[in-house]
């Protein structure tokens, strides 16, 4: 079953990467994140806080959009286009199919999240340009832009000469080159002097460790939303799934205020609180701006919550799909 699971996941991953919407969302969010240091100058004295806030929000919203386009149709599209007939007539169980689709969608969202996070981290290192006399961060521009230019050039050549799919190759190249660019940026200070890898992590004003933690948790929130979209997609069309997914996102961000207020002891509120994903666990931007650092233990706790919630949603998805006719 494992190899079938990964085959379905791999196929879903390739399909998602080759859809034009993936490249469109990927590029738009990358551009917004690249402009983040310039946009963050619009506040007085809170530039770096806004830089992190804006970056995390952009990544979360970009992920929601990507998830909306990819996850919501992943199963209903297979049913509508009837490609599912050729899959389920082979030795593939419905549970395996659901889990494979979910893994493929998560892999796509994670790849995009990985690329966005690195662009965001390059922006964090660059910092907001708060005064006209401040110069740009040369290593960030050279290494970051270098990675982007090499990726686009090689992918274009591959598309022209070897029939490579442009979106797939540029994404994979960015995923491989941006970490290299970020590592180089960590090693080279703004004035081009060499520094230790730990220098950026120990700089107090940057809170780099906390930013990484926040990125990991934001990615987990996207995985939860993808699971909800997959579960809905087993029974509903793309539009209905889209609406429910956005509803779950909004409820998830306001779960504490809606169900955890004065009436929290009521049974109905308890049930609603239990079945609604609490995405506030995954949103560290507020804690960061208030100077309340999260610990590694918190990451573990939330990761446990994420795994259990996703497990429950996928079980529900499997139950919903098991009784569905697919012919």
């Amino acid at each position, binding site marked *: 079953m494992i190899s079938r699971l990964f085959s379905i996941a791999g*196929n879903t991953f390739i399909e998602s990467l080759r859809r034009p919407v993936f490249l469109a969302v990927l590029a738009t969010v990358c551009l917004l994140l690249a402009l983040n240091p310039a946009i963050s100058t619009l506040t007085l004295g809170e530039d770096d806080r806004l830089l992190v806030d804006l970056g995390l929000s952009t990544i979360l919203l970009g992920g929601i959009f990507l998830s909306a386009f990819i996850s919501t149709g992943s199963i209903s599209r297979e049913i509508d286009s009837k490609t599912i007939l050729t899959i389920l007539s*082979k*030795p593939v169980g419905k549970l395996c199919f659901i889990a494979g689709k979910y893994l493929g969608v998560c892999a796509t969202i994670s790849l995009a999240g990985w690329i966005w996070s690195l662009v965001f981290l390059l922006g964090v290192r660059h910092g907001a340009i708060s005064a006209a006399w401040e110069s740009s961060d040369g290593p960030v521009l050279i290494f970051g832009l270098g990675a982007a230019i090499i990726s686009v050039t090689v992918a274009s050549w591959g598309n022209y000469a070897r029939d490579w799919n442009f979106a797939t190759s540029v994404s994979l190249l960015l995923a491989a080159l941006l970490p290299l660019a970020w590592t180089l940026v960590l090693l080279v200070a703004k004035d081009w002097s060499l520094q230790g890898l730990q220098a950026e992590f120990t700089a107090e004003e940057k809170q780099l460790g906390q930013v990484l933690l926040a990125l990991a948790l934001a990615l987990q929130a996207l995985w939860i939303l993808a699971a909800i979209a997959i579960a809905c997609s087993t029974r509903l069309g793309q539009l209905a799934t889209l609406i429910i997914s956005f509803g779950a996102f909004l409820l998830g961000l306001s779960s504490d205020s809606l169900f955890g207020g004065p009436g929290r002891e009521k049974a109905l509120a308890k049930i609603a609180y239990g079945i609604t994903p609490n995405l506030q666990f995954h949103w560290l931007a507020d804690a960061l701006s208030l100077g309340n650092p999260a610990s590694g233990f918190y990451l573990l706790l939330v990761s446990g919550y994420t795994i259990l919630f996703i497990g429950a949603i996928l079980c529900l998805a499997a139950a919903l799909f098991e009784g569905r006719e697919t012919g």
Partner: protein
Amino acid sequence: MKPPPDTAFVKTAGLKKIFKDFWLRPKVVALEGLDLEILPGEVHGLLGSNGAGKSTTIKLILGLLFPTSGEVTVFGKPPGDVETKNRIGYLPEESYLYGFLDAEEILDYYGRLFNLPGPTRRSRIAELLDMVGLQGMRNRPLAEYSKGMQRRIGIAQALINNPDLLILDEPTTGLDPIGAREVKDLILRLREEGKSVLLSSHRLADVEDVCDRITVLYGGCKQAEGTIDELLSSPESTVIETDRLDADTLARIEALLKDAGGLSIRKTESPRQSLENFFLGLVEKAGREGAETSGATGGTGVARFLTRERPAEEKDAPAEEAAD
């Protein structure tokens, strides 16, 4: 020819399927009490007009739909049994394929779903692409394929696991005459190899050419079942085919028939070559003369792994199933 009940690859008893609307009210009776048996090594045709219940029957056999009542067993197990599907190949009524993949990728994907080892997958893909005449287009996305070329890939994917039971829903739809002829040759060859084929088709000539037994459906009910000979033979008349006869000889035969019991010749004709044979001859000639085409070429015969001549290493190659 009534088969012993335990040997049938597929058996349905009183199979009924009613499609319901949103309020669970019966909307369409697609199938009504169907009894069907598909034996090892037989080519069984399902004939019927649009909406007769052919595709519904196939989907019930594959477990893609659930019966309202009645029973289906496939290789003695319920149709939803996942492992049983290792022995089945299925071509849907249209080639529902992933347009973003190319021919090689999609066959590799389906091969993986059967847990075929890498070398087996690669050799089978090459043989199948040769067989369906698409070796030259193996790296083009399927979205760019014509309907007929997609059909050929659909046939290839149905055979990747070397199935014991091949279910073909309208296999010749969209195919050119060469492709249609090759599919019929393939079906006959698979029967020689002891495999069973369930063939659903509108094309009566296709069914007549290759099927051992047929079931005729109308309005979800079985109207007739039997061998082609049982259903189609006409014992009231005799056809003799010979070289062209002149008018004098015909008159003498007529007289002879009259003496033999008052019989007469009802019809004489000089048969002409069929359009299919004429067309295939022209295409073969063009191919021999090296004319180029950007489409599918004629296949190279049945893939070796589908026959008893298949390489020894493939006969012995275990599926990766055990590892799971």
